[in-house]
């Protein structure tokens, strides 16, 4: 800072050159940062588009070593089912906790401890959540033992929960107090203020946060490996093992058969397109509404 205290000398050629070079470097670094995205999208399209076919999307993997390796129908449907259940668990709880933090807890000690624990949850590696669900749900005597779709969904919901809570808290805090006060002044009880004023005002933001959490959960592999596991057939029974796209890809990558590796690329392309659609939807909704 002390350098700022004395006026600079007139800009010398050396300083000008340095300025140019450094600005160029910063721009170049931005370019470098975008290279991986371009490369990944390029390879996904090149290798994945060739693998995609109606047959692939509508048949189950056969699991046989020879002949037709089959498609990814069970994986797509499994991912959709489990993510839907995970959303049904994580979004109400996450929004509820955020409501508590914004409407009741505020700066109280208990609220800041809850905030801190939500932050801790954000940092837990996804594989550790997988382990946790394995030792509490898969091997416990409380429920029927073994892998099951709903256990995978619970693992995913643990990942989504802190994301939903944090983003909801930010949005709910943006709802102007004047709206709350106006409703209270009209004699509305607290719960009606929350249900009819706070939640509707914040709704687009809540949806955006939830969609981003869903996009994150849909691509997760690690929490599903030991909870819903890998299975070939399509099933809507959440009590049984359930296939999913990320686990299917993970399983196919190392295969010696080129058809199966091709299928991995096709699955990856499908998965990335699904996630990008969710992300774009979230962005559009976020742009449509500015709470403040």
């Amino acid at each position: 800072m002390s350098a700022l205290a004395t006026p600079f000398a007139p800009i010398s050629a050396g300083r000008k050159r340095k300025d140019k070079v450094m600005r160029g470097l910063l721009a170049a670094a931005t370019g470098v940062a975008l290279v991986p995205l371009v490369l990944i999208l390029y390879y996904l399209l090149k290798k994945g588009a060739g693998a995609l076919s109606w047959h692939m999307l509508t048949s189950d993997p056969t699991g046989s070593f020879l002949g037709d390796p089959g498609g990814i129908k069970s994986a797509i449907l499994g991912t959709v089912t489990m993510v839907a259940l995970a959303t049904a668990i994580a979004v109400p709880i996450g929004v509820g906790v955020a409501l508590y933090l914004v409407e009741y807890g505020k700066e109280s000690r208990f609220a800041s401890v809850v905030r801190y624990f939500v932050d801790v949850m954000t940092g837990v590696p996804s594989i550790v959540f997988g382990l946790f669900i394995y030792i509490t749900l898969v091997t416990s005597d409380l429920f029927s033992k073994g892998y099951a779709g709903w256990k995978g969904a619970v693992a995913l919901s643990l990942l989504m929960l802190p994301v939903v809570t944090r983003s909801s808290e930010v949005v709910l805090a943006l709802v102007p107090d004047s709206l709350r006060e106006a409703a209270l002044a009209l004699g509305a009880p607290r719960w009606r203020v929350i249900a009819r004023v706070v939640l509707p005002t914040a709704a687009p933001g809540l949806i955006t946060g939830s969609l981003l959490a869903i996009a994150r959960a849909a691509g997760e592999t690690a929490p599903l490996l030991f909870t819903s596991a890998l299975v070939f057939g399509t099933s809507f029974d959440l009590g049984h093992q359930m296939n999913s796209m990320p686990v299917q890809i993970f399983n196919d990558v190392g295969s010696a058969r080129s058809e199966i590796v091709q299928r991995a690329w096709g699955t990856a392309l499908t998965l990335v397109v699904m996630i990008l659609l969710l992300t774009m939807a979230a962005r559009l909704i976020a742009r449509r509404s500015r709470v403040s």
Partner: protein
Amino acid sequence: MSALALSLPSRARYPDRALRWVLTALAGGILALIVFFFIRLISEANPAFSHFGVFDFVFRNDWDVSRSVYHAAPLVVGTLITSGIALVIGVPIAVAAALFLTELCPRRLRSPLTVMLELLAAVPSVVYGLWGFLVLAPKLKGAEHWFGSTFSFLPFVGPDVPGPNYFIAGLILAIMILPIVSAISREVVATVPGEHKEAALALGATRWETIRMAVLPYARPGITGGAMLGLGRAIGETIAVTLVIGNAPQIGKTIFSQGYTLAAVIANEFGEAANNQLHRASLIAAGLVLFVLTLLVNVLARWFVVRGTRGRVTKA
């Protein structure tokens, strides 16, 4: 406000109390969940800790499934090496991109470039693994071999380059932490007061000098925090690393050696360990070590971010 609420008939106050009670219970449930989570992990990992000793489990270099010996040092070291490489490669690029996007970029390009950078975060881990395993590792092998044999006089560099190795894993991790590190850096850089920059410019500083003398000193703690959050991500990243690390439980001699990480060993060996008490407990213990490691890094990171912004961050 409470005076008004109290004056309502008690019939109307009843749902109020119920709602408050339910929401508080939910918040308390989160606390209970985390505590339960921690206790469960510790109790399930305990057989491994009591069998090998906590210190030995973490610091001895011997992980051998065939002899039923589980000491996690090769995994801890692998985790630290790969995330270290990720930081060295990823952070400078992420910070430079953040500086360019907030300070130098033409207004029209800013938002499309930012969105593209954030798209990197939308790509699932397993897809990074797929791409790294099938494309990046084979394509870079020649370059790594050339680098390894030309600069073999440097420490930790050698000509022996297997396909999957620490460096590839670190490179993939660097790409994966780019979006978060640059997003936080952008947020922090945006909080630098305009007066500071204008003062520097008015004194005749060039744009770069303004960045170096006005922007960076102000934003440094926040950027450090962002980098540490990225480190936390890199340490816990599982699937992408599992595919490109080589899965060899050893401490590699060079950055091109095969290795293993805490997260990868769990993903790979847990399936076969389900019926082996000690192996299972050891893997859960590895998970616990991993969790404690990320927790430490994240706590430090938050401290830096809070100190760096002092509550000045305008929520994006």
